């Protein structure tokens, strides 16, 4: 197939530059000493160090998961730098004191750090390598009682909240990468929406890995108290290195009675080159707990840019009448591998979940949907609807679906639909014969395919996602 398809998929990565900035990092490798050092650098309380050490000791007893449909050489965890940060200057009094080099970096990435220039009405926490650079609109949010800050600051300023919720959704020993993250996480975002408050603006975290050889292990914790709601966005990019970098984040969401959390990600890490050299290993644990009645957690993700994606944003539906949603577009090209999906665990009565997954594979990539719908014995009246669609571009890629359904209550209603389609030469010729060029044709097909997911993205993300998919696919159909 054809050059047109090929050219379409093979657009160069635009965020691959490296910022030349003085960084301070701990020596590579992992040990209790390194963990103590990280904890000391961050001036952490004893209980947090204990949390880390416990996780580390547990991690030592665990094995890397090998059940995912991905292949990569074993990771040498002693070769990774676990902490890197731009050399700290004095405490920042205002945004203007952010290192100009850093500011330029984020401006280049389209994330200006000046509040007045920022995307209208979006507060951003910016994470560069291991640390949060700045959080915008903090004061404004504080007026309504919302806490939105870096994780480190939350540990300092709101230790009781962090202590209460950290690890409450993803326990430190949950899985191999969650344990690793719990041991070495360096920063991240913390967000607390008090009772009855509807967050007046979208909150956003922007992650950037810069230092070669460093991993990024951030932690996000969002707590929505009774009757509150928040819309959260996450964006990520990384420079282009020939070596693989590990990103092992943990995101925990807690929704209490009648609370509503909507979490959207447009992930555009560096995916490696067309021969699969370099790129990010994205091994992330994201889970939301619908703890209260009528609570709702909705995940929307557009995954385009890791060498390997291993990620299953999930919902534990504990509260009666709670709702979990998962909307996903995963695009793989070249030699990218994605094994992604969700888990919906129905525990409360009349809990509902919905899964819409769209996988697009191009090049020689492999794209798998892996999902689990579990209905516990006490979850009377649980309902799930799942739809998993795969699209193949060209004839050297692969799409797989691994759905698991485990129902222990006879009143449950579970629906699962799946389809596979292909952008073929005949479709492209058809569009051409109607006068439509290949780029427009592909964008039309892909947008049609992803429509059910894109409608759930916030407006500016939807536009970005559409563009991103177009760029990623430049040259892949022909």
């Amino acid at each position: 197939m054809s050059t047109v398809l090929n050219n379409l998929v093979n657009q160069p990565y635009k965020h691959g530059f490296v910022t030349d900035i003085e960084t301070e990092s701990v020596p590579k490798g992992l040990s209790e000493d390194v963990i103590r050092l990280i904890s000391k650098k961050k001036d952490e309380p004893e209980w947090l160090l204990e949390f880390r050490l416990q996780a580390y000791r547990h991690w030592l007893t665990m094995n890397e998961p090998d059940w995912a449909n991905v292949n990569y050489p074993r990771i040498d965890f002693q070769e990774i730098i676990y902490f890197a940060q731009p050399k700290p200057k004095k405490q920042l009094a205002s945004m203007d004191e952010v290192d100009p080099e850093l500011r330029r970096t984020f401006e280049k990435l389209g994330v200006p750090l000046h509040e007045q220039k920022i995307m209208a009405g979006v507060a951003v926490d910016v994470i560069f390598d291991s640390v949060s650079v700045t959080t915008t609109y903090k004061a404004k949010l504080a007026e309504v009682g919302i806490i939105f800050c870096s994780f480190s600051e939350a540990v300092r300023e709101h230790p009781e909240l962090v202590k209460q919720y950290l690890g409450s959704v993803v326990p430190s020993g949950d899985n191999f990468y969650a344990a690793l993250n719990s041991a070495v996480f360096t920063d991240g975002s913390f967000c607390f929406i008090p009772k009855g408050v509807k967050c007046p603006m979208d909150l956003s975290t922007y992650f950037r890995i810069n230092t070669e050889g460093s991993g990024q292990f951030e932690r996000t914790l969002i707590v929505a108290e009774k009757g509150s709601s928040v819309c959260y966005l996450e964006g990520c990019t990384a420079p282009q290195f020939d070596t693989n970098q590990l990103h092992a984040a943990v995101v925990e969401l807690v929704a209490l009675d009648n609370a509503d959390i909507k979490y959207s990600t447009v992930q555009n890490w560096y995916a490696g080159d067309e021969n699969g050299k370099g790129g990010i290993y994205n091994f992330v644990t994201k889970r939301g707990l619908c703890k209260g009645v009528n609570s709702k957690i909705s995940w929307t993700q557009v995954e385009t840019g890791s060498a390997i994606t291993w990620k299953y944003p999930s919902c534990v539906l504990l509260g009666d009448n709670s709702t979990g949603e998962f909307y996903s577009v995963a695009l793989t090209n070249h030699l990218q591998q994605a094994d992604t999906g969700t888990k919906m665990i129905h525990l409360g009565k009349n809990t509902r979940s919905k899964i819409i997954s769209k996988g697009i594979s191009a090049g020689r990539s492999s794209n798998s949907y892996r999902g689990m719908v579990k209905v516990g014995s006490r979850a009377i009246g649980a309902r799930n609807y799942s739809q998993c669609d795969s699209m193949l571009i060209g004839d050297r890629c692969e799409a797989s679906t691994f759905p698991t359904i485990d129902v222990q209550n006879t009143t449950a209603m579970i629906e699962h639909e799946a389809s596979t389609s292909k952008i073929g030469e005949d479709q492209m010729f058809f569009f051409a014969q109607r006068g439509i060029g290949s780029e427009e044709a592909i964008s039309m097909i892909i947008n049609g395919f992803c429509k059910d997911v894109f409608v759930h993205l916030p407006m500016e993300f939807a536009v970005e996602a559409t563009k991103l998919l177009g760029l990623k696919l430049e040259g892949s159909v022909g």
Partner: protein
Amino acid sequence: MISKDSKVMLEVKNLRAKVGGVEILKGVDLTVNAGEVHAIMGINGSGKSTFSKVLAGHPDYHVTGGTASFAGKDLFALEPEERARAGLFLAFQYPVEIPGVSNSALLRLAYNTLQTERGLEELDPLEFEDLVHEKIKVVEMDPSFLGRSVNEGFSGGEKKRNEILQMAVLEPKLAILDETDSGLDIDALRIVANGVNSLLTPDNAVVMVTHYQRLLNYIVPDYVHVMDGGRIVRTGGKELAQELEARGYDWLRAAA
């Protein structure tokens, strides 16, 4: 029919073409003028479908010799989408399904691409809605088809009618109908044929590629060409089709 002021729309000379390394067209000559209806008949494998795909520029088919001019342009120097924008339309023998892309979105994008090409204003969705609701009457289709994904879940007859709807919207100079009659029941055949007839003007032309004479009862050709072994071996009026129907293709071969 042929008159002194007739405009040459398509002129193909000694066309040779290969697919998968095998030469299928071995020197085709054909001239089509504005206002004319041509039928190309022949047995399976005679090269008639290949001929239509070569004209439209299907990437699997390679021109190895000869020339073709279309509306004054060197056809083979144009990309498939440029040929379409120049007014060449192919109604497909097997229309493809495009899941997730609505019929009306496709039609509007195609229509507006042409408008831009012709230096005319694009239509917004509402204006286009009005246009397409007029056009859809040509093929007696229910407007609900406009909201559905292109050809997805359509019956064979609905797909063919959808092709003619696209032709009605795009108003091509030259429409090539590649076995549009195959797989149609008698009612669908009548609807498709009526649709095509209603679109005929002195300024456009139609080339029908067909196996059977049946279609020609509804869309009456000015010329009938018989293809055999990758060449046009006989050209006549509409009565040639009737003779073929009565005596079979072997009769021609025996005569040759």
